[in-house]
């Protein structure tokens, strides 16, 4: 510390503050510089001096713009959904792969979650939707919970948050035409062959007839941490046990706007629906990039069974006010070096913050429920 000297001597006959400041211009300037530098560092770390740096707010702004404006109170993506409840029972082989409490022997783990369509429009027609999702919250008694948000797509269309953002921007409707500019999307696709490959996989796949016979993929890579500490890179799938069916496009188009939800309510009214959780183990060298599919011969391990026995509309269900942040992980599961989940966690939290501060209109599927009483 400089100038610790003579506190006692200087005290008695100090002139007034204005005179003091006038007599010490250099010191006053130095103090000003220290304060300005501190404030500038704060602004820099907060991204205020680097507007080109991608922040979660930029992300949500871009998604809202691409959607033609925010839908107040709704999730900024996967907006149209319905809540569900059920349970999960882990398999013996799962316990060798991950020490997560959800796999513990003899436990029926309480599960809640949400089925949704990926689009940002909460009132979209189901027949116009090509991507469905399952969000889960697994809450073992007396142990940390696990949240996941998984999609029925063969991987993701991008491997980096930056590419995701560029794709959103390229898909944004031109204010003049009300439609995305094809040239912008072409330019994006020329730079992102991984998206081209993804679109080809999407075209080749058969779309499940509904939520119940659909299967959902973690898309991202995570690490399972075994009781002996071994860490393995995995992806997983909730594999439908329900017989798979697909609908001809003409049949889909003729269906009511909420047919996926109506069908699910009718199906659950008849009894529980089940999925097997199947983990796929990466081999050394497999790309931990969400847009890249691993070879089909990778070892697959049955981790347990998910049973859903109740569905309920968002307003009264248990999922509306939950952020299915994919990094809410229990001991036994850890993030990998796949960059997407980190960005999802950051961006979801902005979506959650915005929608919880808004007044929400009733969901497309409101006041409906079916299945066991929770």
């Amino acid at each position, binding site marked *: 510390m400089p100038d610790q000297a003579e506190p006692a001597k200087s005290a008695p006959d*100090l002139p007034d503050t204005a005179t003091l400041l006038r007599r*010490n211009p250099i010191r006053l300037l130095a103090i000003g510089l*220290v304060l300005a530098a501190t404030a500038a560092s704060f602004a820099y770390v907060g991204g205020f001096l680097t507007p080109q740096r991608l922040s979660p707010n930029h992300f949500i702004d871009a998604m809202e713009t691409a959607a033609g404006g925010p839908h107040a109170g709704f999730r900024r993506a996967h907006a149209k959904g319905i809540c569900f409840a059920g349970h999960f029972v882990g398999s013996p082989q799962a316990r060798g792969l991950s020490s997560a409490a959800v796999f513990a022997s003899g436990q029926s783990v309480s599960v809640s979650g949400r089925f949704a369509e990926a689009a940002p429009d909460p009132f979209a027609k189901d027949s116009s939707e090509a991507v469905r999702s399952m969000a889960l919250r697994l809450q073992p008694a007396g142990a940390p919970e696990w949240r996941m948000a998984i999609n029925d797509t063969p991987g993701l269309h991008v491997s980096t948050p930056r590419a995701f953002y560029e794709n959103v921007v390229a898909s944004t409707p031109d204010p003049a035409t009300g439609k995305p500019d094809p040239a912008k999307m072409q330019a994006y696709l020329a730079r992102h062959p991984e998206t081209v490959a993804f679109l080809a996989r999407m075209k080749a796949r058969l779309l499940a007839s509904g939520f119940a016979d659909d299967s959902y993929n973690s898309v991202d890579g995570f690490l399972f941490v075994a009781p002996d500490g071994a860490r393995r890179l995995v992806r997983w799938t909730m594999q439908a046990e329900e017989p798979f069916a697909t609908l001809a496009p003409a049949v889909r188009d003729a269906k009511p706007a909420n047919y996926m939800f109506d069908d699910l309510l009718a199906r659950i009214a008849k009894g529980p629906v089940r999925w097997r959780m199947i983990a796929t183990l990466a081999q050394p060298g497999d790309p931990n990039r969400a847009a890249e599919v691993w070879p089909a011969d990778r070892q697959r391990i049955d981790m347990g069974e998910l049973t859903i026995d109740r569905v309920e509309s968002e307003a009264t269900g248990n999922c509306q006010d939950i952020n299915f942040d994919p990094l809410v992980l229990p001991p036994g599961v850890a993030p990998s070096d796949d960059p997407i989940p980190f*960005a999802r966690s950051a961006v979801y939290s902005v979506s959650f913050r915005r929608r919880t501060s808004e007044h929400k209109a009733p969901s497309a599927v409101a006041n409906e429920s079916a299945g066991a009483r929770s």
Partner: protein
Amino acid sequence: MIRPAHRFNLLARLLHWTMAALVLAMLFIGIGMVSTISPRYHALVSIHKSIGIVILVLVAIRLINRLISPPPPLPADLPASQKLAAKLSHWVLYLLMFALPLVGWAMLSAAGYPIVVFGSLHLPPILPHDAAVFAILRTTHTVLALLLFATFLAHLGAALFHALIRRDEVLPSMV
């Protein structure tokens, strides 16, 4: 020993400088984590929660210490307006050092998140799950954090004014 009667006691000085580092780190971690989508995001959020709880515990100890052992008086010739500003800003700092961790904890509770600190320690929620309450607390957390940063800058500026321009006993009483 120089002027022992006019120094803060050892615990107060230790807490002051430790918390100065922690609070400043928290402000930068906080503004940094909400502006990034990089893998640092997750690590920063985890650290932010842990340091927040440490600050809450330390500020409680510090307040008790301050009540038991009052701080040395301000310089006798300090203008009354500056004395008032000093007293007020110190109580604002105390208030914010309590409020920010508590609002943070409460907001995570209201959001229905698990609250994990130091990697594996789960704290209980201090509010029931309520999204509307979360929204208010989340905004409150940001506003209070910006207020804390502004108060910190004023505090730093005043400390430097005492040390470099008045060259009085204020800074020596805290070192």
